[in-house]
């Protein structure tokens, strides 16, 4: 007997799937998709892939099935489903699966659908999306991330992670030489000042270069003192990761830097047929459609520039709950999003 939409998501939430450990979740998803009669498999990147439809344009539904750490007891309480990944982003991927199934059962499937539950979106590698990028050339793409059922995400900022490591000869703290942590703090302040220069006159967060200090540690063994730090940078359009890395390196003095996860910002216009399909479907379900630009980064940044097709991100859930101990999804919203997405997919001909 097949699961209903809530049972399906609840079961998926009960399967831990930290980045790099998505195997059990992928096996569950492909088994369920095979039960629907779809062609389903786990690809070389560990992605759970399901395919249905034989004619019409190719539409890729790209979600991710890995989560950040943090065990949240899975439960339904006051109409909400609690669990790690309920919002970011097993809920949106479950919405993809259920909407595709609803579309098929109501006889409205007129396109070819590829559903991809991707791996490692929450790590800097974005392994699953990088692999998928080389496998498909869709006519349109929907990324599975929480936007809320009435809204559609058009773009994400870019990202660059900076790993800083400084070593210097140990010195007496009463001496003239700045301590290793002081040198790192001076670097951080210079970087903040540079970002403030870039951001002058820019009011919207989407247009700003935003630094965040995510990790600091220091120590010494009597001969050498050291300090290390990890800095995250959220990039606006027009700031390329490689160029920014070069500038950051020029501020770092003798410290060694390692850069990771660089990707530019990406934004899709709201004038695409796909965006119009969402506006139409949301209105038909009594909603007030809106569009979003997000201050974070998603797999849209990976596939959007390569596929150059109409692309949006969509999924139920409040993204303010991403990565929090209170992560939960309103089940009524989940059901609405399934119906909206099914209507959107029915328009892809």
């Amino acid at each position, binding site marked *: 007997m097949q699961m209903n939409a809530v049972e399906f998501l609840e079961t998926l939430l009960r399967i831990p799937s930290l980045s790099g450990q998505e195997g059990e979740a992928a096996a569950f998803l492909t088994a369920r998709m095979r039960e629907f009669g779809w062609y389903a498999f786990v690809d070389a990147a560990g992605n759970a892939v399901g395919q249905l439809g034989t004619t019409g344009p190719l539409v890729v539904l790209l979600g991710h099935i890995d989560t950040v750490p943090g065990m949240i007891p899975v439960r339904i309480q006051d109409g909400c489903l609690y669990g790690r990944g309920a919002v970011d982003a097993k809920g949106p991927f479950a919405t993809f699966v259920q909407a595709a199934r609803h579309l098929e059962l109501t006889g409205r499937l007129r396109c070819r659908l590829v559903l991809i539950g991707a791996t490692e*979106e929450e790590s800097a590698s974005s392994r699953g999306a990088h692999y998928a990028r080389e496998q498909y050339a869709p006519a349109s793409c929907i990324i599975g991330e929480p936007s809320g059922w009435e809204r559609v995400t058009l773009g994400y900022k870019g990202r660059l992670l900076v790993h800083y490591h400084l070593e210097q000869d140990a010195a007496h703290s009463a001496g003239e030489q700045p301590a290793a942590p002081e040198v790192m703090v001076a670097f951080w302040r210079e970087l903040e000042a540079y970002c403030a220069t870039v951001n002058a006159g820019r009011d919207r967060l989407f247009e700003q270069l935003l630094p965040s200090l995510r990790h600091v540690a220091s120590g010494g063994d009597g001969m050498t003192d050291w300090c290390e730090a990890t800095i995250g940078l959220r990039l606006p359009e027009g700031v390329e990761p490689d160029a920014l890395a070069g500038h950051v390196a020029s501020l770092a003095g003798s410290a060694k830097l390692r850069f990771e996860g660089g990707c530019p910002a990406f934004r899709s216009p*709201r004038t695409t047929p796909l965006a119009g399909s969402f506006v139409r479907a949301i*209105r038909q379900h009594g909603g007030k*459609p*809106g569009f979003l*630009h*997000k*201050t974070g980064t998603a797999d849209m940044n990976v596939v959007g520039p390569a596929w150059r097709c109409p692309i949006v991100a969509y999924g139920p859930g409040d*993204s303010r709950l991403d990565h929090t101990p209170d992560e939960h999804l309103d089940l009524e919203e989940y059901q609405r999003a399934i119906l909206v997405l099914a209507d959107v997919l029915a328009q892809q001909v």
Partner: protein
Amino acid sequence: MEAICPECGATVELPADTMTSEIVVCPECGAELEVISLDPPTLALAPEVEEDWGE
């Protein structure tokens, strides 16, 4: 079909296969407009773009 841009008053040509909720651009002022009706052809400012968290 023709409709009036609510932003600048210019006439906007709409192709015959235009659908409601399509978002078009006014050739005069560049405003992005939603087709809210086909009978008669009517345009309104497109849904706003807001900023949000994540992911």
